[in-house]
């Protein structure tokens, strides 16, 4: 009867750490520990079974598994840090054990270096602007970090800015710029007049920015529009009339929860009217 003893010895909560393979696609909660494939053999059903040491290399081979977002290494196991569904991707070229990550819904943005975001200029102080990007601190944007920056050619308080982060970590205030490393604007800078800015979840932005996104293609066929996506969950949209702009904003917000059939129905109804 070694099994109950070993089960109790696994963790204080009394539940065994599960194998990552068996939990794929299921909801995991922060604090759970997951076993990687090569450890399951060692644990076994009883946990206290003794095996003779095998001399061939296969028994001690370690597969290199990549920990994606939502997971962290804890000793030999994976520790879940976000709640969501566990996903896995097989390695493309055969080496390594693939990538594990947790798909989670999140609306709150954490600045990351290199992300392109839409910010709102809130204040001028010294020779920098303070820009609200939806994070814990306003980002700073220097006067000179625009293409062709001159004294006249500057954003005002209240303008919308599309830029990227050059410094973004948990210890310092984030800094953003509107030029790339060559000094060119590359689409960044002050976003023009009119249009509507609204907020969606971060997951939807990533879905819309994926290559060959159907939603964007269908929306483009509906009305001519200008659209800017910020990785901080903000979308700016502008169409010819205010009514069209509002329709587009509502569609994009609702896209998160619609299936593709429902979406096609809505688009066809709009195209008729």
């Amino acid at each position, binding site marked *: 009867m070694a099994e109950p003893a070993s089960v109790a010895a696994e963790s204080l909560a009394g539940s065994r750490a599960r194998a990552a393979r068996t939990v794929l696609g299921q909801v995991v909660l922060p604090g759970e520990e997951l076993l990687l494939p090569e450890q399951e053999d060692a644990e076994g059903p009883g946990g206290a079974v003794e095996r003779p040491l095998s001399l061939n290399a296969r028994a001690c081979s370690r597969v290199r598994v990549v920990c994606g977002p939502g997971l962290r290494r804890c000793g030999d196991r994976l520790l879940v840090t976000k709640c969501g569904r566990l996903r896995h991707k097989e390695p493309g070229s055969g080496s390594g054990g693939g990538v594990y990550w947790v798909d989670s819904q999140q609306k709150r943005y954490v600045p990351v270096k290199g992300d392109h975001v839409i910010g709102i200029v809130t204040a001028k102080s010294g020779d920098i602007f303070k820009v609200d990007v939806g994070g814990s601190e306003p980002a700073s944007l220097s006067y000179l970090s625009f293409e062709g920056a001159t004294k006249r050619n500057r954003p005002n308080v209240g303008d919308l800015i599309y830029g990227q982060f050059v410094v973004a*970590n948990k*210890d*310092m205030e984030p800094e953003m710029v509107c030029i790339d490393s060559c000094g060119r604007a590359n689409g960044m800078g002050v976003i023009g007049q009119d249009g509507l800015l609204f907020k969606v979840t971060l997951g939807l932005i990533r879905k819309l920015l994926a290559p060959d996104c159907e939603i964007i293609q269908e929306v483009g066929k509906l009305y001519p529009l200008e659209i800017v996506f910020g990785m901080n969950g903000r979308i700016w949209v502008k169409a010819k009339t205010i009514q069209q702009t509002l329709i587009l904003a509502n569609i994009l917000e609702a896209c998160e929860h619609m299936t593709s059939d429902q979406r096609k129905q809505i688009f066809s109804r709009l195209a008729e009217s």
Partner: protein
Amino acid sequence: MAPPVRYCIPGERLCNLEEGSPGSGTYTRHGYIFSSLAGCLMKSSENGAPYRRCGALSHHTLVVLISLGCAADPRGGKLGQKQMRTQYPIPAQLSPALPVVSVVRETESQLLPDVGAIVTCKVSSINSRFAKVHILYVGSMPLKNSFRGTIRKEDVRATEKDKVEIYKSFRPGDIVLAKVISLGDAQSNYLLTTAENELGVVVAHSESGIQMVPISWCEMQCPKTHTKEFRKVARVQPEFLQT
């Protein structure tokens, strides 16, 4: 040690000039001795035997110099070192000599970081231009109240000062050995520098919370996760390392 007989506040009248002679922390007006500090009253005689009874007369004339340390004010030690030395001739008919009346603070004089002193400090916050620190030790003496210091970007290293990134030299929570270069203005903090081989980060923790091991003058490695992080590492002399 007997508790002091009384405390006094600035402006309080202590005694008559015939009963005592003024020492440090006091001043005289209209034939009386007044206190100019907040502290405890002390009377002493020439041969250093203090007795703290109000109104007692000694047979000696003495002025005792007590240093004034203002514990909380870092400037007090420099400005307040006033030493009053007055001697009153004792008239022949008053044969007992006057005790010296002075007012002292209870705490010992504060140890202040001086220019050129090596201090141990802890980084409290960082900015792209400087790092703010709390000074904890001066030399090997701990401070009761920590002072604030600033390490500017150009004072982190001696070479390539303009290419320094504060994020790659210090992080909040690091323990740093630094040297005082300036006392700063009235409102600002001490200015510190780490622009020497022996100065810089001594203790740092990685993102997973484990104390890191230095591997070069600019990198430290976590022993558990083997991730490397950038710091400006101090080259501590071997005799100070505890292994």
